[in-house]
């Protein structure tokens, strides 16, 4: 047993599933992870997002106890993790995983179940349950190398569940999957959440995760930029709003007016930051405005209508997470 139970005896039901305190990991001079403080509540699906090389895999390997932190510590379900080998509170699915050739699907799960010391009856039951869970029951006797990428991914996910861990760490589970397999993966993640698991799933592509996660954290260059419930992160980051205005007639007038307003802001109107055309639709003008209430946006619409512009569409477009992510992780 690799988890120290000497501290935190009164483990509270609401202690977070995963908690890292100033977790730092260096490789030589390179700082892969810089004082990371990560908290994941129990039962949530946490999206851990960052560009390649941001420190996601390092974090997951630290959480799985595969490497030791340079400083800082990891707490899983309130217990301090002592790294240096396998431990039973997490199931870990690496970003690049291997399958053993010449091994059948059920034998693959049976092998890992044996590694965790499940006794024979329990092992058989677990293998059956997991094959059903990841929808591979009909491929039970197939050789692992004959499975498609998506099936192997699901099998690998199942392997991380053989010891029924409360916490699951999935490193880039969606990479290399076709759209259908991605949908299936999302379904699987929801099922796992319903089973009461806490899932930490990393990705460098935000859209893969946005729908299924209830919490996200964005990491770049080893530092956590923002972390929390999806809506909170969105609000916290949304410094500006984009207005999408579709002009039926009077496009020139509208542009001129908006550019004039950008140069000379007015009190009752929102402060404009940029006016540009939508490359995909000539009749649309996109206006970046500083965070402003609906009152001011309505005033802007009124001003445009008064100027004789005929508008068929006027709406505030929340900056999507993908763009937020790009803005956060590339602007340095």
């Amino acid at each position: 047993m690799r988890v120290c139970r000497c501290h935190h005896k009164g483990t509270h039901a609401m202690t977070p599933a995963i908690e890292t305190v100033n977790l730092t990991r260096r490789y030589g001079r390179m700082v892969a992870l810089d004082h990371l403080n990560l908290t994941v509540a129990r039962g949530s699906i946490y999206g851990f997002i960052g560009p390649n090389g941001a420190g996601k895999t390092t974090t997951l390997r630290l959480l799985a106890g595969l490497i030791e932190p340079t400083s800082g510590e990891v707490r899983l379900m309130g217990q301090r993790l002592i790294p240096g080998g396998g431990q039973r509170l997490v199931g870990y699915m690496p970003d690049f995983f291997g399958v053993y050739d010449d091994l059948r699907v059920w034998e693959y799960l049976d092998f890992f179940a044996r590694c965790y010391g499940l006794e024979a009856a329990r092992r058989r039951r677990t293998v059956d349950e997991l094959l059903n869970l990841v929808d591979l029951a009909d491929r039970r006797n197939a050789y692992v190398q004959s499975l498609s990428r998506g099936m192997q991914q699901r099998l690998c996910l199942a392997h991380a569940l053989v010891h029924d861990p409360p916490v699951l760490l999935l490193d880039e589970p969606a990479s290399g999957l076709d759209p259908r397999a991605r949908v299936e993966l999302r379904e699987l993640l929801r099922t796992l959440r319903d089973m009461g698991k806490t899932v930490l799933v990393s990705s460098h592509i935000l859209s893969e995760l946005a729908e299924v996660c209830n919490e996200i954290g964005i990491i770049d260059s080893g530092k956590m930029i923002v972390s929390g419930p999806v809506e909170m992160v969105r609000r916290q980051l949304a410094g500006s709003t984009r207005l999408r205005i579709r002009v039926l007639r009077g496009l020139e007038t509208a542009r001129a007016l908006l550019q004039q307003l950008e140069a000379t802001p007015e009190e009752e109107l929102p402060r404009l930051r940029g006016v540009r055309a939508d490359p995909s639709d000539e009749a649309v003008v996109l206006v970046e405005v500083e965070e402003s209430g609906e009152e001011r946006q309505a005033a802007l619409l009124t001003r445009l209508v008064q100027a004789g512009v005929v508008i068929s569409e006027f709406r505030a477009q929340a900056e999507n997470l993908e763009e937020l992510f790009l803005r956060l992780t590339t602007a340095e």
Partner: protein
Amino acid sequence: MRGIRLQRPQINPIIVREVRTRMRGARPYVVLTVFLALLALTGVGIFQLMAQQARFGGVLLSAQVGQGLFKGLAFVELLLVVFLAPAMTSGAISGEREGLTYDMLLATPLRPEQVLWGKLVAALSYLFVLIFAAVPVFSVVFVFGGVEPLALLKALALLVMTTIFFGTLGLFCSALLQRTTRATVVVYALVLLLLGAPLLLAMVWGQFSSPPGQAPPPSLVYLQPFSALMAITTITPSAGQEMNFFGYGDPVSGLPFLMLLWPGVIHYGPAGPIVVPVYRATLIFYGLLTVLLGWATAHLMLPGRRWRPRRSDLGFVLLLLVIGLAAYAWRDWWYVAPPRMG
């Protein structure tokens, strides 16, 4: 704590997995067939050679045929084992790294020693299948006689110990170098060094010894498995010294390569030639080296802070101590120095 109650694994999971996959596909059967065919051909070849010599007027005893067969078969089998054992294990740990299953393995509660043990047993079990499948081929020797069953057992012990040692050497390289190709190249270089260096040194020993012309000491060839086998398979005639030390058609007198294995093993003293039982020291030193290499490999397999003391180190130290003490207590049994020549 959530999760189910867990207990220690009973059978090593690595062994279960390897045993399940080891005999899948045609390859293991092809290797076994080729292995046995080579041995059988060797036997037929030696028999033909001797029969031919008898046709040309040599005096050939049935016992000499038996001894010649025994020697020839044992050498070929040892040769196969020496080159197969490292091949079986040099990819065992690096293969997990290259196959990207290493992390998954480390994330389980399996300890490095268990992985190591499983890998070794799995690789060796197949080699033991080869060795024991060859026992019936060896039994042909008894049709002709001339070899006591004890010699066969000694040869078998040497074969098994050599397999274990060379297998562990392969595992060590696999864990150290982390890439199968590199590990394979290095382990074969080591094997060749281990086989060739003592023989080369023994060849030139006389030129550099003082006084010149001294026979090389037996300790020079302690780690040379073929010299050890030579010590086992050279059957000292019990009936007087007038009998030929090597019979007609004996592969040793026919093949110049095998003559290279004489120095250090066969000493010509004032009372005639004697065979130094170097194989005893070989068994002991292979045992010691196997434990040492296994110990180092277990540490090399750890993901971080590899050389921090572990509880399992105690076991390795204990094992080393037991072998060391036994070797010390029975030093007269294995440390046989031949009489110096004037």
